[in-house]
Structure formats: structure tokens, C-alpha cells
């Protein structure tokens, strides 16, 4: 393990993070809010920490090759560091009383979860709310992918970091050069964000709120500068614009890239995308059917609210236009399952990801098929391509770990005195990077009342979920550290 290299990468990322705090400062200047000092303090600490790390790790060797192990360690530690230093503006702000809450909010932001401990959002400084949205935006496409796109320093070692941060079950490099791929992803991401801002402005949303919402829609984050999230506006137009962009963010970004290159049928030809869109539609109709009459009188409203909640949860965004805890049990059950399914691989969404669900289903079917035809030979295929057995095993391992960690974390949280429904709901929401859960952490409530230990546990779950388990959990396998 070459700690110097790891420290250097983290140092550079912290400097980068520090400079990104200039954006909320500009907002602060514009609105003359009181948070300027907060950001100056945070930026100072972050930059100093970053430069110290870079200075300490200065080495003459220009060997930028790193192995998979180092890549995973770097990414896991970098995300933790970013979570800590990103929490500083919250910690220094009057809205937060302790570091636990600030760290929770920061990790919830960077991991695009969107679970909040803030009880009175609209009362906070505008610049702090902007920072809250910005960290989701930075975390969504991956802060390391971003640094790969704009900083050429990582070189060959970048691929290991990229794989550790974007552990898609079916990895696809868009272009032969990694930094070009990263650039394409970020340009696409930025352009979509811009479009959403324009659409929201077109519907009459103020620029600040439109920007904040766009910055948290594209990473499927879910922080809103409003107390009652998107429900505040009660506008079908805003709902549908946000639904559209949530769906776009839930689709593999390489498909967007293919679309732009003229493959117009790319969405339809991709098995996972077809599954994701089809499933979303079916679940929306089921929920709409369920809440029509029992919650909403008109079919139009039922569809509007059903589609918003289903899309918001399945893409793991976590915006809310309705309190789904008031829905009938059937709808709640569907939304709960959506938390696990998640969006597509290669999107900004979390959860297990549709590709893994499809692969897992096909794998199980193959096993059953083998019982019926003992001598048959068959492969699991997605998009007509064979999934190698090694990848398949890793997917099955992922699914098993996902459920295992979910259950253990839920029981631990319940052991901290949280009621069962809340415990299972909160872990599902944080692990899947969704945001609102069930029980006392539903869309109408927040996470503030949870015990401090519980918040650390959930923050840990968010990191596990965002980095897709392996990158983080591998650090806790003793074999990993043996020389």
C-alpha cells in the first residue's frame, strides 16, 4: 500500500473541494446572508488540510500506476474525507448543533441520498442550501470521475479509481481514453442540469430554487430548498418536468451518449433500460390504481402523484410531492421494494440497480432450468452479450451482501431504540441512497430525532450504498491488509 500516493490524491481532492466552496460564497454575497464567515472558515480548513497532505506526500517518483487494492482504499478514504470536510460549512452554521448532524447531512449530500436532519430548511441561509445542493451534484457523477475529467494527474492509475467509484456490473468505457469518457459524462450531466433549470424557470420557479432542484435531480439526490420538498409548489408542470429529469438520470449515461451519436433506438435496444422504463410504468399504474379513490378522487391526480413517488423512489432521488405513508399498504409495499431495485447501472441512481436484478433473475432461472434439463448448457445474457461467470458471481455476491448488510444494519438501528418500521425504512432509504424512509423518517418527517449512533450507522450505510459495497467493505476484510 503506497500511502503517499493515496494521501496525495486525497489532498488534491480536498483542495478541489475547498475551491468549490467559492460557489456558495458567491451566492452568499448575492443574497447578503450571514453564512459568509462559515464558508471562509470551512474553505480555510479544507485548503490547509489539502495542502498539508499534498506537501507531506511529495515524492520525486512519477510512478502513477496503482493496483486495484490501492484504488479501492483511495476511493473509500477519499469519500470519507470529503464527507468530513464537506460537513464543515454545516458544522459552522447556526442550524447545526453538533458534528454528527453536520457529517450526516454532508454524507447524505455527497452520496446523493437526500436524507436530512434539518428541521427548518427554509430558515437556513441561502448559501448553505446551495452548498447542500451542490455537494449532491458533485457526488452524483462521482467526484473522482470529475477530477479525472479535469485533472490529468491521475494518469494510468485513474482506471482503478474509476472502477472503484463507478462499479457498474457491466462496465463500459465510452471512449478509448478514460479522461475523455469522464469529460463526456460530465458534459452530458451539466447539459441536462442546464436544461432542467431552463424548464423549471419556464414554469415560473425562481432561479435559485430552480438551480437547487436541478442540481439535486440529476444526481438523483433529493435535497430540496423547501420544507415540504417539491410538494410546496403543487404544480403538475413542475412535477412532470422533475419526473422527466429523474427518469433521464436513472438511465445509463452511456445510452444518452449513444443517443446523441445518432443511435436513436438506444433506449429501446438496451435490455436494462427497457426493464427500468417498463417496470417504472407498471409500478406507477399499480400505485395509481391503488390510490385512485382511496387518496385522490381524480384519476389524473392519482397518476400524477403515483408517477412522481414511484419515479422519485425507484431512481433513488427522494423528492416528495405526497406523504406516501398515508397511501394504502399495497402502494407502500411497492415503494418499499422500489427502494431496493434502484435505477440503471451507469446512471446516477443507487439501489441494487436493474442490471443486477435482471442478471440475478436470469441466474436463478438458469439454475431451475438446469434441474429440468440436467445436461443443458446455457449462459446468462444481457443485451445479447454473455455475462461471464466471474461477473455473475460478483453480482450474486453483491445481492447477497446487500441483503445481509441491510438486515444487520436494520437490526443494529432497532437495537439503538428506534422502532422497527423506522429502522427498516431508514436503512433501506440510506443504503439505497434514496432519502425519505418509512415510519418516523417518512417524507413528511426527517432524520433529526434519531440517536447519534444511528446517524453514524446510516452515514456508513450511505457510503456503502454509493460506492456499491465492495469498495468500502473490502477494507474490513482482514485478508486485504495482509502483506
Amino acid at each position, binding site marked *: 500500500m503506497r500511502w503517499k500516493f493515496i494521501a496525495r490524491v486525497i489532498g488534491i481532492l480536498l483542495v478541489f473541494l475547498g475551491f468549490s466552496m467559492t460557489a456558495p460564497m458567491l451566492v452568499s454575497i448575492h443574497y447578503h446572508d450571514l453564512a459568509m464567515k462559515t464558508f471562509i472558515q470551512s474553505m480555510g480548513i479544507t485548503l490547509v488540510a489539502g495542502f498539508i497532505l499534498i506537501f507531506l506526500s511529495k515524492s520525486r517518483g512519477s510512478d502513477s500506476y496503482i493496483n486495484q487494492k490501492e484504488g479501492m482504499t483511495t476511493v473509500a478514504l477519499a469519500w470519507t474525507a470529503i464527507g468530513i470536510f464537506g460537513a464543515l460549512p454545516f458544522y459552522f452554521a447556526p442550524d447545526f448543533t453538533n458534528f454528527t448532524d453536520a457529517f450526516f447531512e454532508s454524507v447524505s449530500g455527497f452520496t446523493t441520498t437526500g436524507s436530512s436532519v434539518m428541521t427548518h430548511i427554509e430558515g437556513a441561509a441561502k448559501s448553505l442550501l446551495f452548498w447542500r445542493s451542490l455537494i449532491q451534484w458533485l457526488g452524483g457523477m462521482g467526484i473522482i470521475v470529475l477530477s479525472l475529467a479535469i485533472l490529468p494527474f491521475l494518469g494510468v492509475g485513474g482506471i482503478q479509481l474509476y472502477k472503484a467509484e463507478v462499479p457498474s456490473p457491466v462496465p463500459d468505457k465510452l471512449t478509448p481514453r478514460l479522461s475523455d469518457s469522464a469529460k463526456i459524462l460530465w458534459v452530458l450531466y451539466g447539459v441536462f442540469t442546464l436544461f432542467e433549470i431552463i424548464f423549471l424557470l419556464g414554469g415560473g420557479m425562481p432561479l435559485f430554487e430552480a438551480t437547487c432542484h436541478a442540481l439535486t435531480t440529476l444526481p438523483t439526490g433529493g435535497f430540496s430548498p423547501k420544507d415540504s420538498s417539491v410538494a410546496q409548489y403543487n404544480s403538475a408542470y413542475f412535477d412532470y418536468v422533475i419526473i422527466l429529469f429523474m427518469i433521464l438520470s436513472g438511465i445509463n449515461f452511456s445510452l444518452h451518449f449513444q443517443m446523441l451519436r445518432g443511435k436513436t433506438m438506444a433506449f429501446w435496444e438496451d435490455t436494462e433500460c427497457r426493464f427500468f422504463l417498463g417496470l417504472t410504468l407498471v409500478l406507477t399504474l399499480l400505485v395509481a390504481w391503488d390510490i385512485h379513490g382511496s387518496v385522490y378522487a381524480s384519476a389524473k391526480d392519482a397518476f400524477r402523484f403515483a408517477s412522481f413517488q414511484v419515479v422519485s423512489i425507484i431512481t433513488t432521488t427522494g423528492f416528495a410531492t405526497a406523504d406516501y405513508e398515508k397511501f394504502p399498504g399495497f402502494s407502500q409495499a411497492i415503494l418499499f421494494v422500489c427502494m431496493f431495485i434502484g435505477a440503471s447501472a451507469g446512471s446516477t441512481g443507487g439501489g441494487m440497480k436493474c442490471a443486477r436484478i435482471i442478471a440475478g433473475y436470469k441466474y436463478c432461472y438458469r439454475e431451475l432450468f438446469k434441474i429440468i*434439463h*440436467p*445436461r443443458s448448457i446455457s*449462459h446468462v445474457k444481457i443485451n445479447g452479450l*454473455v455475462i461471464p461467470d466471474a461477473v455473475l458471481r460478483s453480482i450474486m455476491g453483491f445481492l447477497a451482501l446487500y441483503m445481509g448488510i441491510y438486515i444487520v444494519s436494520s437490526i443494529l438501528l432497532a437495537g439503538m431504540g428506534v422502532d422497527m418500521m423506522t429502522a427498516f425504512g431508514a436503512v433501506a432509504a440510506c443504503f439505497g441512497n434514496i432519502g425519505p424512509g418509512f415510519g418516523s423518517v417518512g417524507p413528511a418527517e426527517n432524520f433529526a430525532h434519531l440517536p447519534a449512533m444511528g446517524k453514524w450507522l446510516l452515514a456508513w450505510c450511505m457510503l456503502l450504498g454509493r460506492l456499491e459495497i465492495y469498495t468500502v467493505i473490502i477494507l474490513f476484510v482482514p485478508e486485504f491488509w495482509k502483506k
Partner: protein
Amino acid sequence: MKIIIVGAGEVGYNIASRLASENKHVIVIDKNQDATQRLSENLDIQAITASGSNPKVLIDAGINETDILLAVTDSDETNLVACLMANIISPTTKKLARIRNADFDSYHNRFQTENPHIDTVINPEIEVVNTIRKLMDVPGAVDVGDFVDGKVTYAGIRLDRHSPMAGMKLVDFSSQFGEDRPLIAAIIRKNEVIVPRGSNTVEPGDLIYFVSQTEKLEKMLTLFGKKALPAKRALIIGGGRIGERLAKLLERDSIHSKIIESDINRCHHLSEKLDKTVILHGDGSDKKLFLEENVSQTDVLISVTNNDETNILVSLLAKNLGVENTITRISKSNYFPLLATIGIERIVSPRLSAVSSILKQVRKGKVLSDISISGERGEFIEAIALETSDITNKPLRKISFPKGTLLVCIIRNSQIMIPTGESIVKPGDRIILFAVKQAVKNLEKLLTVKLDFF
């Protein structure tokens, strides 16, 4: 006329033998010493032991004076390179290549217009698979094929005792069946090809070749007392190129199919390429596997391994287990006469169809197709009637057809006409004739179409 054949495998050998018997100047190039030796010992041709894709070898063989180059090695790449080099050295030489890999399928037309300007790309496997597909849907037929781009079908049917037709005289057909009577082209009785006249009768056990419009085929079959039963479940033994292509075709037609293949690597390959087909790893002649997979429930069993003997045994075993409809791939033509006696009649032969499609492609003039039936004992010839030939512009009864030939039907404006003594063939009509092997030469004279090449 000089012809260079690259590749002395089964196909190369058989084409060489056909062409040599028609007094063409044939040179065969193959890397394999044994193969070339076999050729030069058995046939009146020149054999060169060298690589057919090597430009120096091609020049030495006289590619510049050669009219036709046939690249028929087992390797697509060699065939392509041979054509490419021939195209560079001697652009006027006609080129024909056998290309079997399915991934090349969509480029066949571009090979003609762009480099290497291959005049004809043939893939006998496509034809074999199409034949199998046709046979599958016509369980009673021993042989099926088509003319006029699929509008007219010929079929060979073994007449059984219960058929309403058994024992009838052909002259009685028109009174019995009216307009839609079957057009009988040939009767094969005890290995003897009979070109029928009105006085002939059809007997149980005869193999009857008839021609019909493709859309009326089903109706014709009922006249013979046979039913066209579209297959729903198929079992393919052997996952080679033919098995794979067939399975792909069946997937498209949503027929449930299984492939049994003995090579595990090939199984993996098939499983990658095919979606719905069940791939089974095992021996095709393994009775236990057959029972495990409920072979008696399949509608049709197709054995297409590379081994004739295995195919024969598998088909026999399947018949024994209750599968009525079996199709067997046979490569060795000397097996053909034996197979009828053990009840294996539905046979496909990629080699024969390669030879006949190459010959068809190479033929010049107005002959559209030339199909050998029943182990080359007779031929269907589809041709366009020429003004200059004796056959046009007079009633048929005034034309003396050579012995052993029959004008089966006339197609004018895509209408099939059953010829009578008063019928007149007009120039430009498509005609389908049948001739026993010995009569083919005389028939050519009558048509004034030389069965010439390019």
C-alpha cells in the same frame, strides 16, 4: 474453357469431377497432398499442391488465362484472399467463393460490387437449412424444393397404401381431381426413374415427384393422403454450422428447439449465439438423454452432425422411439441407394447442394435452375424458352421430346399452366422440365440452350 478450383475437399472434388466429365480444363489447387493426389489419380485434371491464396501459385496455375476461379476451401479466409488476389492479378476472371460464416451473410452483395468483386458468393448451408425448414413442415415429403423464386414447389412423396390415389392411372387424374390435379413429374419405383405417360399408374410404395404452386401445396398433399403438419417442437442433433443456422431460423419462427451437441466448447458457443434454443451437452446417440428429454414428444428430429453414420443411427434410434418425422444429413452419395431400404429417406446433403448451386450459378444462358433429385438420377431444369429453340410456337404434340424427358409445366405471367398436347410454349415463358440423367444432353439440344458456363 479453363477453370481453377481452390480447395480439393468434398465440394471441390465433386465439382471437379462434374466439370472434367464435361471436357473442361480443370486445375485444382490444395495444400493437402493426399487430397490433390486423390484427384489426380481419379480424374482427368491437373492438381497442384500449394496454397490457393498465394499469388505466385495462382500465376503459375495460369490465372490470367482462366475463365472461372472457384474458391471452395473449408476456410472462408482462404477463399476470400484467393478471390482478392485473383481480382488483382486477373480482373477479368469470374470468381465464385464459398463463404460459410454467418457473420459474412449481410456482406455477400457488397463482395460483388466492391473488392474483391466475387461474382457469386455461395453458402450451401443456407440452402440446406432452407431445405430442412421446408421438409419440416411437410412431414410426408421425402424431398422438397422450389422454382421461380419460391412460387412453384416440387415435392417427392412416398405413396402409401391408404392414399386415395394408389393404383390410379394418370389419365384419370383430370376427371378425378379436376383443374387442381397434381402435376406428376417423375415416379421412382424400385430405384428406377419413370417419366410418366398417361397410361402409367401410381402404386403404393412409389416415390412420386410432383410440382405445384407453393400456396396450393397443402391441398395437393391432402390429395395424396398426406397432411402438412407444421412442426412445433424440434430436436437438432449436432450443433455445427448447420445446426446453429437451423436453430436460429427456428427461433425466428418460434418453434421450440433443442440442440444436442457433444463438444462442450461448441455448446458454450451455441449458448452464446442462441437465445431460446435449449443447448444440451451429450452424445446424439445416447438413448438415456433421449428419454430424459422426452424425444418421443418432439415433432421432428434433425440429425446434422458431421458424421454420416452417427446421423443414420440417430435417425433410426429416434424412429424406434416413436419420432415419425426425421431428417438426416448425409454427405456420402454412395449411401443414398441404401438408405431407402432402412426407412431413411428424408435426406439433406450440403455437399450435393453446394455442387448443384455452384453449377447452377456457373451455367450460362437461360437455364435458371438445375436440381438433381434422388441421388442425381434425374434433374429438374427450369429454363426460359428461347425464340430460336424448337420448342416454341407450335403445339406440344408436334414436338418430339427425347425419351425420358417431360415438360412439367409452363409458367406465363406467374400463372402455372398444365401442358396438354395442344399447348403452345411462347418465347419468354418459363418452363420446368424433368429429365432422367441420360436424357439431359438431348434435352439441351431441344432447348438450344447449351448448358454452358459463364
